[in-house]
């Protein structure tokens, strides 16, 4: 299987700040590659360099074995971008939007029309071809954002948070579309703050932190690296306040993450501290509904490796 993207020793500096620090990465044909990192980790800077939006300070990026700096046109022709922020014209119809951007990739005449309609059909907007995006829902705009990136049939598609801020129905539609695009031969780089999405659709994942790739592999490979951590999920009857912080002082506890009345405690697997955790909660008059020790998931992996939550 050929390499669709090859990154070697990629570095980007903004004055003295090193945003991306000597990253190397290979993405093979047919993969859906998850790119995970908290805000400011260097994920967007890396993606922007692959998309030619930023110039690398040093290093090399090759798309389909061609250096993007030397053969920029070839690289761009084979690349589709779904930016995190919507990149569509509100004052042009859905058809005009897709057609204009596809036209920039050299499509003309009947081929342009055919591909435009095909892309709109793919994202389920053929019946809205003549409508203006200003009248679309958030989910429809996101789908149009995807259509604008795929009409020229790129080999590699970069999707940066394509499901942010949309309803579950549109989200499912987009995830299904991503799988269908992948089945049709596209290689996809996918970033998301929704860990479950990445876990659901990505075949391989890289975790970026402080400008470096700190882990890379399949979901299973990443999870298997976490053998020294246990993940305890505690459901309470009522929401917890500042008392949750007290749990951090219990020996072995690494991180505590709260979501309303649910607490996720990541702790050293070797330390038997469950009783002390529960005792602390009961001393704070918290009524416990359930306690569960979970298998490590990507969230656990991410927290363990970076020490912070993906959405921090």
């Amino acid at each position, binding site marked *: 299987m050929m390499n669709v993207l090859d990154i070697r020793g990629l570095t980007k500096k903004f004055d003295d700040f090193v945003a991306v620090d000597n990253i190397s990465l290979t993405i093979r044909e047919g993969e859906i590659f998850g790119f995970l990192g908290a805000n400011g980790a260097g994920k967007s800077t890396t993606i922007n360099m692959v*998309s*030619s*939006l*930023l*110039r690398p300070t040093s290093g090399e990026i090759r798309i389909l074995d061609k250096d993007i700096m030397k053969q*920029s*046109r070839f690289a*761009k*022709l084979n*690349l589709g*971008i779904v*930016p995190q*922020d*919507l*990149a*569509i*014209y*509100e*004052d*042009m119809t859905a058809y*005009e939007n897709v057609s*204009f*951007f596809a*036209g*920039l*990739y*050299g499509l*003309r005449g009947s081929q342009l029309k055919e591909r435009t309609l095909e892309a709109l059909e793919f994202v389920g907007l053929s019946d809205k071809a003549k409508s203006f995006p200003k009248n679309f829902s958030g989910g429809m705009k996101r789908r149009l954002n995807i259509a*604008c*990136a795929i009409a020229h049939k790129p080999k590699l598609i970069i999707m940066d948070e394509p499901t942010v801020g949309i309803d579950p129905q549109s989200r499912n539609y987009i995830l299904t579309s991503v799988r269908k695009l992948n089945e049709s031969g596209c290689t996809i780089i996918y970033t998301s703050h929704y860990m479950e999405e990445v876990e659901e659709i990505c075949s391989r994942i890289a975790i970026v932190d402080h400008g470096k790739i700190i882990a890379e592999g399949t979901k299973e490979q990443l999870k298997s690296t976490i053998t020294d951590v246990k993940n305890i999920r505690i459901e309470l009857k009522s929401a917890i306040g500042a008392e949750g912080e007290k749990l951090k002082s219990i020996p072995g506890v690494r991180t505590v993450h709260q979501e309303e009345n649910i607490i996720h405690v990541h702790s050293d697997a070797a330390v038997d501290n469950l009783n002390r955790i529960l005792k602390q909660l009961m001393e704070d008059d918290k009524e416990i509904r359930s306690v569960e020790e979970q298998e490590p998931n990507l969230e656990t992996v991410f927290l363990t490796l970076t020490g912070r939550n993906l959405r921090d």
Partner: protein
Amino acid sequence: MNILSIALKEIKQDFRDRRTLLFLLVFPIVLMLILGLALTNAFSSDVSIGDLKVVVKDATGGGELSQAFTTFTKEVGKTGVVFESLQPGENGREEVENNRYTDYVELTNQGISVYGSSRDPIGSNIVQGMLASFTDKYNAAAAVARIEPAKTEMVFAGGKQDYIKELSVDPDRTPGSIDYYALAMTVMVAMWAAMPAGGLIQREIGRGTAVRLVTAPVRKSEIFIGKILGGIVTNLLCVIVIILFSKYVFKAYWGSHMGIVLVVLVSEVVMAMSLGLAGGYLLKGAASRGIISLVVQLMSFFGGAYFPIGNDSGGGFMGFLVNLSPIRWANRGLTQVIYGNDVSAAWPVVGINIGFAALFLGASMIMMRRREGL
């Protein structure tokens, strides 16, 4: 092809922006009507070519320039323009300020200086157009005299006929306030092209679409040229609509050289677009539009878009400001083309506009190339 696609997209978007379009078309037409009617008396609407009186002070002591000028006054005198000598004790400038003469001409061995009336800018412009043609011819003769003195007479003799052709002013035409504002508003709208141009690239960044443009296999220069081309076409169409409206609805006079008038206006639009674009690059962010709008409004004011202002040959700070306005250059040149039939007056304006446009575009190109993204 990409340039054309981007230009067409720009035109489509511009014409869908009804608010801006309304502003570009309705505002100048309404202003033309209001100012044209309200300030009718402020213009010498009854001035005909026969009413133009010029006072002349000849301090050359009867040299070559004096003889050439006498020949010139005889020829021009046939069209009805009256040249009178400045009497001892009279002050030429005061005579003009007191509205007894349209212009005051002073001949010295160093050359010709003209002081025009701010109360009758159109009449003054006509006289200045005639004098400009005379000066060109005289300078040519002087240059020939330095090299082959024997042929000097030929230049004057040959020039006489050309000269009369250039002075074929329509003697029945009486330029009024509507005529003035039709021209002033049209030139002002051409200059307004600077305002949207200031946000040409910023708007793409704001809408997030700059990412798609930059990641597409399109050169930055293609994006740049396509966007400018689109803007020029939109603004030029607005200018043409205003010309046609003023010509057929307000019956404003546009002379018999419409093609030349359009060439000047195209150059004005190109220069304005370039100015706006360079301003947008230099003054990044939201403030850029406000500053560019302010500069354009000041240019409009000092250029005489709202009412004739100052005197560009009178010197002083106001004269300096007036001469800085591209609207003033265009107004002056076009007045000579329309009312003086002096087509040659268009080319310096076109040259200056295109020169500045090249300068601003070059600066924008350099700034764009240095920048990552758009």
